[in-house]
């Protein structure tokens, strides 16, 4: 009996070790450990054995059963480990992810939003106003006399009744001041129109952002401060800026602001016309004639104003070389912002 068990064990272990797949392991399990399997046979044949052999044989048979159970389990595991990964639901992680793309704000909107945010944090209020305007708001109240060459810079589209499409957002200075009393900190952005033939750098419709502050004892140094905060935050800490005297009818003193070219860092390139400087905005101290138009006390109040072209700023910021791209709205363009 003892020998028989040991022989079965030897044979079974060899078979298990030789099993090639899960199916063979299963067949071996049924053959040896099944209800009518080899081990079951041994156990049932114990009753026929000599009584003095029985305890020993019983122990051996049980030990065989345990040994085979364990070996089959181990074999099964080993086979599982060795099985091809695909069988375990392995994926090709290099397949592209399923797109669930966000949309995008238009780059001009983004530029307006970013600039606005900088001034909103300085306590400015954001307002909007009409694009269809009168001569009064677009010119007269802003100290731009009729039939004066200073109007050449503000060529204008007219509609019936002498009304016009605003050629600048400075109209908002008058609209706000007519309704409110100082102190004021205002920014206003929106579309403006000028009859310029369209090319890579001109458009008959574009966007401007106007800002102004009115209070007692406002200084040019503070105007510099406000724009300094804007330039450093929007274009970066390393950017240099300079204020160049200029002329605008609605400010006095007036200035244009240049920043060191962000493309060539001031060395001179095609974007800055080899000058190393980029003009980004116009500004100045509000001309007392403008305050007179809105009946502000010019002895008590003064202020500053600035205006910038959004397309130009966006083109510089993003390195866009053609203004028409903003209005063509090609999806491949829009998606980049």
């Amino acid at each position, binding site marked *: 009996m003892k020998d028989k068990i040991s022989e079965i064990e030897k044979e079974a272990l060899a078979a298990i070790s030789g099993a090639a797949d899960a199916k063979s392991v299963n067949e071996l399990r049924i053959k040896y450990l099944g209800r009518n399997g080899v081990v079951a046979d041994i156990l049932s044949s114990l009753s026929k054995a000599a009584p003095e052999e029985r305890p020993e044989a019983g122990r051996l048979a049980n030990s065989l059963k345990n040994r085979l159970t364990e070996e089959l389990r181990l074999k099964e595991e080993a086979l599982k480990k060795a099985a091809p990964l695909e069988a375990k639901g392995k994926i090709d992680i290099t397949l592209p992810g399923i797109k669930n793309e966000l949309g995008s704000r238009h780059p001009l909107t983004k530029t307006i939003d970013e600039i606005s945010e900088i001034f909103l944090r300085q306590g400015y209020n*954001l*307002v909007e106003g009409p694009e*269809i305007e009168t001569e009064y708001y677009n010119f007269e109240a802003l100290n731009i006399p009729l039939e004066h060459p200073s109007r050449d810079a503000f060529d204008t*589209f*007219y509609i019936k009744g002498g009304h016009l499409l605003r050629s600048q957002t400075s109209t908002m200075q008058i609209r706000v001041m007519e309704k409110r009393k100082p102190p004021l900190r205002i920014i206003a952005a929106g579309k403006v129109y000028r009859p310029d033939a369209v090319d890579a750098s001109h458009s008959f419709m574009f966007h401007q952002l106007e800002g102004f502050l009115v209070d007692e004892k406002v*200084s040019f140094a503070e105007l510099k401060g406000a724009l300094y905060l804007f330039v450093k935050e929007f274009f970066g800490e390393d950017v240099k800026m300079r204020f160049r005297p200029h002329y605008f009818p609605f400010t006095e003193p007036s200035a244009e602001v240049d920043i060191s070219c962000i493309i060539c860092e001031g060395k001179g390139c095609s974007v800055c016309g080899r000058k190393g400087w980029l003009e980004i905005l116009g500004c100045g101290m509000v*001309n007392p004639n403008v305050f007179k138009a809105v009946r502000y006390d010019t002895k008590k109040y003064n202020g500053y104003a600035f205006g910038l072209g959004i397309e130009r700023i966006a083109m510089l910021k993003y390195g866009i070389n053609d203004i028409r791209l903003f209005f063509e709205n090609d999806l491949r363009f829009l998606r980049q912002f």
Partner: protein
Amino acid sequence: MKVPYSWLKDYVDITLEPKELAERLTMAGLEVVSIEEKLGDQVFEIEVTSNRPDWLSIIGVAREVAAICGRKLKMQNALACQAQPGQAKCKTQEKSGKDLPLSIKIEDKEGCLRYVGRVINDVKVASSPEWMQKRLEACGIRPVNNVVDITNYVLLEYGQPLHAFDYAKLAGGRIVVRRAVKDEEITAIDGRRIKLDSDVLVIADEKKPVALAGIMGGLESEVTGTTKDVLLESAYFDPVITRRSSKKLGTGTDSSYRFERGVDFEGVLTASERAAELIVEICGGVASSKVVDCKEVVPKSKKVFLAPKKANDVLGLRIPEEKQKAILKSLGFTVKKSKGGFDVTAPSFRRDVSLDVDLIEEIARVFGYDKIPVEIAATLNERPVRHKEIEGSKDKIVEDLVKDTLVGLGLNEIITYSLINPKILNNLGLAAEGLIELQNPLSEEQKAMRLSIVPSVLSIISRNINRKNLNLKLFELGRVYYREAEAEREDVHLYIALTGLKCDDWQRKKTNFTFFDMKGILEELFKQLGMEGVSFKEESSTLFSEAQSAAVYRNDEAIGYIGSVKKEVLHEFDIEHEVILAEIEFGALAKHSNLKRCFRGLPKYPSINRDISIVVPVGAASASATSIIKEKGGDLVKNVRLFDTYTGSQIPAGFKGLSFSIEYRDDSRTLVDEEVDAVHSNIKSAIIEALGAKIR
């Protein structure tokens, strides 16, 4: 304005290199946009602002150079004739042999404030000297002959336009400054035959116009090789009238450019003398002693009071009083001490100065803007408001929420032109009522303000499709413009457009955008805005196909529409793909949005779900089943979700299957199956009864 470096050196001892000088000028407000090496000289291209006609001259720029370099302007050099330095300077007072008759009459005193005329006899018209030609060419002026070149030379030097007539061609030796009579004509120097009218100021002789005042001379009376006696004109023509004429005639010249901006009234005679001197010198003529100077009284320059303290306060730095005074004097101002400051009188060539801030700018400019410190203004003692309503403005918070929501849903914002070709409205069958048209459009394509953004959106879609961007989810939040009761109105509208595939990947089935994708976008938008009472009602439109067209209502107010764009309309834009479009009035979104959020406790008791599948006629609205479920289920029904629709072999033709999942829950206790079964079966019978439905 082109300014040769060497010419400036005639008037100022400049030690700065051209590049350095250009930098200094730029920082003083005379922006040097380029320096060009030309005929052995360095020529500055200076951008002169419209308030500074005095900078449209070499002397004017030289004065500035002197001021910023702390040098003196050497006017004696200006009068010295360059041709033959050794000769006597001025022969204008010399008596000539013949005194030709000369009468000058200013009939239009509004158009001409001063007219200086003089005759120079016996000139020999030839080429001008080489040095003069070189300077003219450096400044972009083509040499003609010595007389004409001298007038141009003095124009550049003094900023005073001059004109030389061939005296022999002037009938009666008379000059009359007057308005043209209707239908009078003149042939200008450029050969153009120009018809005149009373808007145009002319110089006439006894019979007819001989020059367009301040703009251009006439061909007949121009100085030619045969000219012997020259009438030299130096005048002050009114800026506005010159500008009007020049615009009307479509002719801008170096002369009109200066008159429009205002020449120096006091400089009219000086320039005339300078030119006469040069003519005598170079062309060998003899100046007549008779100089006729007709002038009106021009108001003297206003005295402006300047408080140096105010200058410092406005600029935000300390410039000593004496320094302020010195700067103003260097620019030609007369400065007198007065109580608490200075009485400042501007020179005649500075008509742009009328307020103390004008003087403050002069001081700051020359002192240097870069010396003004950077200061951060104290914070405003007022709560900054994100947005405050001013005329025509819209609510920025709602605007941001709309954009954030749409961008979050994967839509790309577009911005299109507000100007359109009005023809397109016709082609689309859209009403053109209230259309606002431009009086001076650039082209037909941009002739009118848009009444609707639909044409713009469709053309953007068309362009994208042409460029193989086939799957598009776009929106624009922009204005539309119209006239109502004689007043122009601007309303903000939201446009959304979908076309192409909604998913185009390896995992999901490729499906096109449908009406319901758009409806879902709008529903999510209304949800984000906290807008209640919004419904979609079937409504036909000229824009949409009959099968897929609806209006969007908020309670009883129509706030927009949604639908699938008609084939005929798409055809106008060469679009072959289906386009789903929605338009919503932004005003309604702003007005009816409710951004308050109130937390509701999470359910404490479990819910039970039951499905119900019904078969109804194809024309039945699924919403009627939903409302019956809600009505019959009462408080217990917390949610009804349509999870399937079906038509096909298992259902008779003309019918469709709808499957709903209903969530039952009681907020105060745990529901048991039996209760739910009872309610659910009530709902079933109600649907069968009300809709003639069958249960699947």
